[in-house]
């Protein structure tokens, strides 16, 4: 048969085993001749009984062999198909159909209807009169109380201390087993504007409750990937007392706006550019990444950044109207683990159907790009002396 000649004429190294295999196959084929679908035996495809797959061969070496052969064949076919397509395209020239666009996460995004239109008057009015209006009108300046769950361990305590240096005008207090509902009226009487509670579980911080104080909303986050200062590689010296600038990325939906404003109201409204420090809250696919950097402009286009301060990732679990009252409070948004919450809630988009882990690797690169486009216009504001001074 032509087939036998083909195979035996092939490489001699695997010759014996191959031959044995093909002989077996051909014997089977001869027996099953009547049952094969096409009258002409295709020279390439083996004439195995229908329904046979390579994985059914019990002998591992032979199975491997068959698989590699099949793979090579597939590759050859693919290459041939590509070449053919290319030739056709060249032959058609201008009349060739447009190239098909590959599927990416960007393309598969579900459009979110709650994205806020910047011209929307109702949203503008709502934001002008909500609980953060007094901060954005420069009437109040923030005063933060940072505390933890009861009996915190070393990591959480150190995180609190570091957060204290990052957020200006903040104070850390030991929890002492007090109930939050009792702490809150005391804070209000002492003119605190925000309360941050870092929850701890098994010696690592894993949750964050951010409550705006007079009567404001309370956000509950899940915190992960906490890195203290000493764990950050290639970091700069400790942050100074200068008030940092804030970057809020991708808080586009209505819920995103509320959360974004909450974060913004933690920091005083007048950043000191001399300090060249910046705190970033970057939202991507509902995960909020917090980073604290010091930047320096080497030239108009190039900027160098040093990561200072702690870094962590937050995911919103619930936003409650009113101060902390998890039992009887009214929730503005609750994270529900069900099919309806397929799209991104805070902004950006989510690919529906698949769960993709958020990528944190390219954060620095992303951050650099942002730095460039945001800070290049502020170059004029920074005086030369501060610009070139060394820390």
């Amino acid at each position, binding site marked *: 048969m032509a087939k036998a000649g083909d195979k035996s004429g092939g490489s001699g190294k695997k010759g014996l085993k191959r031959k044995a295999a093909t002989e077996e196959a051909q014997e089977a084929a001869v027996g099953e001749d009547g049952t094969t679908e096409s009258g002409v035996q295709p020279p390439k495809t083996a004439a195995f009984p229908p329904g046979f797959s390579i994985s059914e061969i019990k002998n591992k070496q032979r199975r491997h062999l068959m698989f590699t052969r099949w793979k090579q064949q597939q590759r050859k076919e693919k290459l041939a198909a590509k070449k053919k397509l290319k030739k056709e395209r060249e032959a058609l020239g201008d009349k060739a159909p447009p190239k098909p666009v590959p599927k990416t996460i960007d393309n598969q995004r579900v459009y979110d209807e709650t994205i*806020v239109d910047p011209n929307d008057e109702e*949203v503008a*009015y709502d934001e002008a009169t909500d609980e953060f209006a007094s901060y954005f009108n420069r009437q109040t300046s923030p005063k933060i109380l940072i505390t933890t769950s009861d009996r915190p361990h070393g990591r959480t305590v150190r995180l609190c201390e570091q957060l204290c240096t990052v957020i200006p005008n903040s104070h850390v207090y030991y929890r002492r087993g007090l109930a939050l509902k009792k702490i809150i009226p005391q804070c209000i009487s002492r003119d605190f504007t925000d309360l941050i509670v870092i929850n701890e579980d098994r010696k690592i911080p894993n949750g964050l409750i951010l409550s705006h104080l007079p009567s404001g909303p309370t956000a509950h986050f899940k915190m992960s990937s906490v890195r203290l200062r000493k764990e950050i590689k290639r970091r700069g010296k400790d942050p100074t007392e200068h008030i940092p600038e804030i970057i809020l990325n991708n808080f586009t939906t209505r819920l995103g706006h509320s959360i974004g404003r909450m974060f913004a109201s933690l920091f005083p409204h007048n950043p000191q550019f001399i300090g060249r420090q910046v705190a970033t809250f970057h939202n991507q696919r509902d995960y909020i990444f917090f980073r604290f950097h010091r930047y320096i402009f080497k030239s108009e286009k190039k900027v160098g950044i040093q990561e200072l301060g702690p870094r962590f990732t937050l995911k919103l679990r619930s936003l409650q109207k009113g101060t902390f009252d998890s*039992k*009887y409070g*009214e*929730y503005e948004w609750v994270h*529900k683990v069900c099919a309806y919450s397929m799209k991104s809630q805070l902004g950006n988009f989510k690919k529906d159907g698949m769960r993709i882990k958020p990528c944190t690797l390219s954060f620095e690169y992303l951050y650099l790009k942002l730095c460039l486009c945001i800070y290049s216009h502020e170059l004029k504001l920074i005086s030369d002396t501060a610009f070139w001074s060394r820390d």
Partner: protein
Amino acid sequence: MAAAAAPWNHVWVGTDTGILKGVNLQRKQAANFTASGQPRREEAVSALCWGADGETQILVGCADGTVKHFSTEEGRFQGQRQCPGGEGTFRGLAQVDGTLITCVDSGILRVWPDQDKEASSDPLLELRVGPGVCRMRQDPARPHIVATGGKENALKVWDLQGSEEPLFRAKNVRNDWLDLRVPIWDQDIQFLPESQKLVTCTGYHQVRVYDPASPQRRPVLEATYGEYPLTAMTLTPEGNSVIVGNTHGQLAEIDLRQGRLLGCLKGLAGSVRGLQCHPSKPLLASCGLDRILRIHRIRNPRGLEHKDEPQEPQEPSKVPSEDTETDELWASLEAAAKRKLPDWEQTQGTLQARQRKKKRPGSTSS
């Protein structure tokens, strides 16, 4: 646009910034109506009810103590009146024989005379219901009967034409298994049709049925749902069950014959502030603090029918009953949905064939 669209609005929603929105579900549009032209937070809508003459007028109770009249046909606010007295927002509005009944948070229930007849703004009748009122509801069958209830304020049924004492005063349930008093927090009240019974839902996640006709002052039936306070309740068209919503956005249908949970409705992410069923069709409109109006199908199959995200960031506070004169539009809404079930509602039969071919209109939001 307002004048033409007003009669075609299926659902009316009040918001926290004082805007009254009429939502046209067929065209997926929302129209905003404000009394003063600008949204104002002092005018936050706290209560809505239909006015006299069928469903052509809406009474809007605002946070600053005014009740505004809105005409659905003309699409504008016609007038307003001050209803001072008592502290707190309106918890209930009702209209009977041209007089207006208001109840505020601090427990002062007042009956105001018709504005045209008397210039003075003295109330005709004033009752003290007890502090901490969460809801006042009028019996649709007997307009002179109202029921009130609230936080540590037991359910009371009042006859406005009768004496100053309530007709029916509910008694608290027995002490629980630890012999502790069970706290009371009636968040919403509904009158069951064709009987004297009332249903309440509480902030301690209980649904209770009271029967004033029976000698028992305690609830006749009690059912619990979930772990969070129930904030809104509505009766289904058949009258055997209620749909309740809680502060986490969970909606559930509870059968009142047995006290059983029939099923839940998903979708809401925030606290439920308003629920309203269509009087005849198995459709439910829900709105809440997540700023989205949703229309759900209650039966066959249970699911979300339509979601309106009007991009307005308000918190809708109540949804009154939909226009029954626009039955034909409801039928077209059903037919246009992607369901293969036959339309078993016998509405205008001649229109059905035409409506089945109608495509679902593209969504536009104002």
